[in-house]
């Protein structure tokens, strides 16, 4: 039996599988490489993020030092990021305790914001579009927000009418909040601290 098997096995084991294994390796490389690249450019930039509480920003996104992932993501989105020196945009997808933002809940955002010439706070729905609500207001700027005697503000996010600064949430689904600082002093994100950012508190969740 042995004498019969040994001359055959090198032939059957080497010729067919080698070609097969090369094709397998190349297909694996192509599939894995392209799918991970596709996944990467549809997400957030993997490096260089600045996280302060719930707020996240990519200060290098609008600078010549943007890494290849950032450039690929900008091209994919067709986006024009705020340049370093122009401003910086912070996105929040979670509340202060890390729970995802949900339109079924009521949130309060306050009471301070970082120093900038002007800031805007804008709501977007889960797909990144401006939500369509009865109130038709999706944004507050630092110039129009109502403040108390200590210069602090509270913006309430809710589906139902609220006193004071109120932004109406869309009927359902997740949403994001973007805080854009226009013309902040100093280089982008250099001297920002978490304590200067507004806190997103979840107040209650109704059905």
């Amino acid at each position, binding site marked *: 039996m042995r004498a019969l098997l040994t001359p055959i096995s090198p032939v059957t084991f080497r010729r067919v*599988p080698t070609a097969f294994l090369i094709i397998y390796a190349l*297909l694996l490389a*192509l599939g894995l490489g392209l799918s991970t690249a596709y996944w*990467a450019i549809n997400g957030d930039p993997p490096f260089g993020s600045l996280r302060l509480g719930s707020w996240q920003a990519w200060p290098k996104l609008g*600078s010549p030092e943007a890494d290849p992932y950032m450039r690929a993501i900008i091209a994919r989105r*067709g986006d024009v990021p705020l340049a370093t020196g122009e401003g910086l945009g912070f996105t929040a997808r979670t509340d202060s305790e890390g729970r995802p933002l949900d339109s079924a809940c009521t949130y309060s955002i306050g009471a301070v914001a970082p120093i900038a010439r002007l800031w805007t706070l*804008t709501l977007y729905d889960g797909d990144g579009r401006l939500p369509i609500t009865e109130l038709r207001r999706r944004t507050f700027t630092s*110039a129009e927000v109502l403040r108390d005697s200590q210069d602090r503000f509270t913006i309430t996010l809710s589906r139902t009418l609220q006193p004071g600064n109120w932004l109406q949430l869309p009927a359902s689904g997740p949403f994001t909040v*973007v805080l854009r600082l226009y013309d902040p002093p100093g280089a982008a994100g250099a001297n920002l601290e978490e304590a200067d950012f507004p806190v997103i508190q979840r107040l209650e969740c109704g059905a």
Partner: protein
Amino acid sequence: MRGFGRFIIATLCGIVIAVGVHIVAILASPHLADRDAFNNVQSTLTAERAQLVSAPGGEDTWLPRPDPAVAVATCAFDLANGPMRIAARVGSLPLSFSFHKESGGVFFAVTDRAAVRGELEIVTMTARQLDEARAAEDENDPSRDVRIVAPDRQGFVIVRVVAPSPSLRPQAEEAAKAVTCTAEQDT
């Protein structure tokens, strides 16, 4: 077992090549993207004034996640015909220019804080055009232009004017549309 060992080696080779494929795909995608910002602004190449991309309010725009408080206008440029001069009269509303490469990516930005006598004026040119402009310059009467060297021949400028309150939005839109971008024939 030998077959299995070779299978493992083939898998590892596949993973190593996959890393290369991934890197190539990421580096190439800004050049292959057909829906990126430059494709959307290309129609403004010949315009003398900045064209509105996103009116304040953020309706009807290709710009993802528009800020409703900001008017965004754009000028695309092609430096093959000479440098481009972009100028704006600065008012009370915050105004800024950012200069982008054709493949995306910012190469320069400036706000109205840099304005001189109420005018913000930037000339963008290629490195060669800068050399020519310097050579042609009169030593006793140097140019006062602020010159920016563009890394690529093509690109676009984004003008942002922020309206602090909704009542100022029409004014912001006017300010954004009033920005001029003129191609300079051989300076």
